[in-house]
Each structure stands twice: as structure tokens, then as C-alpha cells.
């Protein structure tokens, strides 16, 4: 008898094969009805209109790209590994910069109802702004496209972390605070030994939401600033009319996003506690 996991894997595989089969079949070029003229042969046979490349073409492309991911043949032709590395490094630097600021401020807001009320209106106004709307301002002030992209990541990942930290800190159980009080702990020690571990799961949830948003935003940001990165790569391949590469890079974006989320998820498991 198969376990539920094995059954699920089997069903998953069947879905994949069916979907790929339909895709493969529907993207075959039509059979020529009559003999091709010399002109038609030169222009690519009966394939008069561009069509979505079949999975087999994408698999071949993936094999080609992934077997040599780090080549660099000038600004217009870099390996997928290099492009992803650029994007990941931008996401991580903007993200950790945001964490560095959001978590301490979230702590203050969570611990002080006064600060919460004072800062909440600004957070509510700034939070719904699309991170890309900051781009022109960032480019004008920073005068560097690379740093502007990092700034956009910073501004989009700060809010979930800030709000979750404040929420987690404000909702630490009164009993645990009382334990700290009856043991005469100083405020800083209370923050580090009681409030931080108590709020850590909520903070990590915020961090997980943030990394997801940051990875969504970096693609759009790199399409705008150009030069390097996976977002630029997608747009560049579109300009090259190379749909096979576009689809391949879409899959890679999904894969990296999943890995980032898994990383944060396992970090969250470390601080998780059961009441």
C-alpha cells in the first residue's frame, strides 16, 4: 500500500505529464498541406506565425543554460546563474537593511502604546504605496540605478516586518512579562530574554512575508533599471523574441522564490515554540 505522500507524488506527476503533453501537442507547427516553395523553406517552413515553444524546447534550453550557468560574454549575454546571483544579492541587501531598521522600530512601537499611536498614521499611509512608485524619486536622490533597486527592495520589505514585530511584541502574554517583573529583570534584559523569544515566531512570519514580496518586486525593479539581474534577463529575452528563454527564466524565478521561502520557513521552525 502506498503512503499518502507517495500517492500525492504520483498524482502530482500525472498532472504534470498531462499538462506537458497537452502543451507539447498544441504547440507543434501545422503540417504543410502542399510542397513548400523555395521561399517558404527559407522563411521557416509552414510555421508562419510565432507560437509558444513546446516543453521539449524549454527542457533543452534549461539543460544548455544550467550546464554552464556562470559564463559572461558581455552585457547582453550572461549565464542564468550570474543573473540570479545579481538579483539575490540585491534582494538580500535591501531585505537585511530593512530588517535592521524594522525590527528595532517594531519593538519600540509594540512596547509603547504612545509610539504606536504616534507612528501608526504614517505606517498606514506609506504601506500601501507600490514600491515601484518610489523608483523615480530614488533614482533622483540616489543617482545610482543599482542602489535604487536595493532601496525599492528595502521599502517594500520593511512594512510586513515592522507591523508583525510590533504586533508580536504588543501581544506577548502578560504572564510572561510578569515573570520578568517578579524576577526584577532590567528592561533590556526583559526585551532580550522574554519579549524577543516570545515574539520571535510572529517576527519570523513577517520576515517570511517580506522576502516573498521582495522577490516579487525585484523582477519588476530590474525590468525598469536594467543592466543585470533576472528581471532584466526576462525583458531582454523578450526583446530578443526568445520566448524559450523567457519561459525558462520564469521557471527559475519561481524556483528561487520557493527556495528563499523554504529558507525562512526553516529559520522560523528554529524559534517556534509550543504553548
Amino acid at each position, binding site marked *: 500500500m502506498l503512503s499518502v505522500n507517495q500517492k500525492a507524488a504520483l498524482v502530482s506527476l500525472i498532472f504534470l505529464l498531462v499538462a506537458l503533453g497537452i502543451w507539447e501537442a498544441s504547440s507543434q507547427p501545422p503540417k504543410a498541406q502542399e510542397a513548400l516553395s523555395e521561399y517558404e523553406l527559407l522563411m521557416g517552413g509552414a510555421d508562419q506565425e510565432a507560437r509558444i515553444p513546446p516543453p521539449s524546447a524549454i527542457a533543452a534550453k534549461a539543460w544548455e543554460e544550467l550546464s554552464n550557468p556562470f559564463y559572461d560574454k558581455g552585457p547582453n549575454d550572461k549565464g542564468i546563474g550570474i543573473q540570479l546571483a545579481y538579483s539575490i544579492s540585491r534582494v538580500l541587501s535591501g531585505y537585511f537593511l530593512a530588517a535592521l531598521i524594522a525590527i528595532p522600530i517594531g519593538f519600540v512601537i509594540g512596547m509603547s502604546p504612545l509610539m504606536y499611536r504616534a507612528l501608526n498614521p504614517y505606517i498606514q499611509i506609506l504601506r500601501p504605496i507600490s514600491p515601484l512608485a518610489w523608483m523615480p524619486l530614488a533614482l533622483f536622490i540616489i543617482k545610482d540605478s543599482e542602489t535604487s533597486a536595493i532601496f525599492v527592495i528595502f521599502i517594500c520589505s520593511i512594512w510586513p516586518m515592522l507591523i508583525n514585530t510590533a504586533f508580536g511584541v504588543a501581544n506577548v502574554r502578560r*504572564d*510572561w512579562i*510578569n*515573570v520578568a*517583573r*517578579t*524576577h*526584577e*529583570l532590567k528592561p533590556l534584559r526583559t526585551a532580550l*530574554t*522574554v519579549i524577543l*523569544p*516570545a515574539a*520571535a515566531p510572529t517576527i519570523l512570519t513577517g520576515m517570511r512575508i517580506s522576502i516573498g514580496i521582495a522577490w516579487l518586486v525585484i523582477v519588476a525593479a530590474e525590468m525598469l533599471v536594467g543592466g543585470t539581474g533576472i528581471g532584466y534577463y526576462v525583458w531582454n529575452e523578450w526583446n530578443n523574441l526568445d520566448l524559450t528563454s523567457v519561459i525558462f527564466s520564469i521557471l527559475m524565478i519561481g524556483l528561487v522564490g520557493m527556495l528563499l521561502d523554504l529558507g525562512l520557513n526553516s529559520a522560523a521552525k528554529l*524559534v517556534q*515554540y*509550543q*504553548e
Partner: protein
Amino acid sequence: MTAQFLQVQNLTKRFSSKNQAPLTVFENVNFSIAKGEFVCIIGHSGCGKSTIMNTLSGLDSPTSGVVIMDGKEVSGPSLDRGIVFQNYSLLPWLSALDNVRFGVQARWPSWSKQQVKQHSLDYLELVGLKGAENRKPSQLSGGMRQRVSIARAFATQPKLLLLDEPFGALDALTRGVIQDELVKICVKTQQTVFMITHDVDEAILLSDRILLMSNGPNAVIAESVTVDIPKPRQRGEIINNPGYYALRNHLVDFLVNRSAAKHYQEQKGPVITNPIESHLSSEIRTIASDTQMLSACV
């Protein structure tokens, strides 16, 4: 009266809200506890027992009145007063050992790591948790959690131990076992204890004195009942004490029939009663009169 170890003077707690008349939970609460004494407080829910306890611990401040411990006014939480909370209040991300260590470290910051660990382990052993020190609270049963909580409080060696209905959430069997352990530890350490309970038998088993609280609002401490049963006590044996049922009936009678009475509010302080003694002396009187009648017949 000589200066007692803990004195509670004219303690009053009032909650005022905008639209309603202020609610007086309790007022003019006066009592004292001697060093090494075990005092229980019994009363119906809502009479402010927990508020009194929070005031003693310093977590809450009274509307008026003072608590004086060891000659100093209580003005905030202190390591001199250890607390065992009703819901254990263990930190769930720390193991049993680390929960105890948390208290020990706070109490003696200058101790070495080894010293802190050894001291914590000693106290876990004292409550019978040897071997479970690396388990998280979620992996412990309710009784075991409460033992960790007791170990944490005892390990800091407080001058006064406050127990807020510590066995309320436990089943009867577990409760019995931990009560016996508490009796043992208290005999060994001569700990001064103030405890809230709902359980009359538990109060008789553990305490030197039982404070009875009238119903709230405007609750007061109506009576201070002396428990005249020699220590150390055994659960199985105290029921054989000739005064046990007189005492028990007295307490139950208060809770069922008398606690709602309003006249307690006019009292200056708790009336001191000793049901065992009065029961025994009345019995002696009956025997004496029987003897008299007997001799008259002869």
C-alpha cells in the same frame, strides 16, 4: 503586638470607571503573617483574593493601605517574594531546567554557570523532576509543569512564597502528590507561605492559619481561623484528629452560609477563631457534666 514579618494594613482596592460608580473590590484588609507561617486565604470567586496576592507581590498597587515586609514597604515586584502562578507561567521556549535557571540567574547574577546549573538541578530534584529537565513545558503534564513552577519559585529562596491557586487546574490524584511534596519542602525549608485556594481540605492540610474572606464587592477578611493540628501532617491521618471535622464544618459553614453577610464590614479586623479548641473544650464540658450526673446518680 510585636512587629510581624509581613503586615497588611488597611488595604483597599477600588476600580473607578468613567460612567459608573467606583467598584470597591475589598477594603480595610488587615492581617499579618509571622516568619515561617503558612497562611491560606479562602473566599468565593470575585472577592479579590488574586488582587490581594498581586498587591503582596508588588505587581499591582493598592488604592490605599500598605504592605510592609521585613520592615520595608512593598512598592514593586521583588525577588524577595517568589510567586507560583495559577497557570504556571513557564516560558514555553525554555526547557524545565532553563525555566528554573532563569530564576536562579536573576537572583544570583554573579554565580558561575556551573553553580547556577547545579542549584537549579537540585531544586528540580526536590520537586521530583529529575530526568525531565530537558523537556519543554509543552512536553510535560500539568502536574509536572506546576512542579517546575514551584521549583523556580523555591530555587530563588524568597523570603515569602506566594501561591495563587497553584493546584486548581490539576486532577485530584496529582494534586495530592504535589501537596505532599509541598508539605515536605516547607517542613525542610521553614518557608513563609501565603496561598490562595478554593479547597477546604487543602487549606487544612497545609496551613497554620486560614483567612476567610467575605463575598465581594466590598469584601473584607472576616475571620482568621487557627488550624490547631500538630505538624508535620499526613493526609491520611489528619482526618483522625478529634477536631478535624469541627474545623472543616466551620470553614464550609462560612463559605456556604455566612460569607455573604454584610456585618463583617463593620468589624475592625478579622475575628480570631479556633474551632478545634472550642470543639474540644465543649466536648470536655460534656464529659465533665456526664461525670457529674454519673456521680450524682451514685
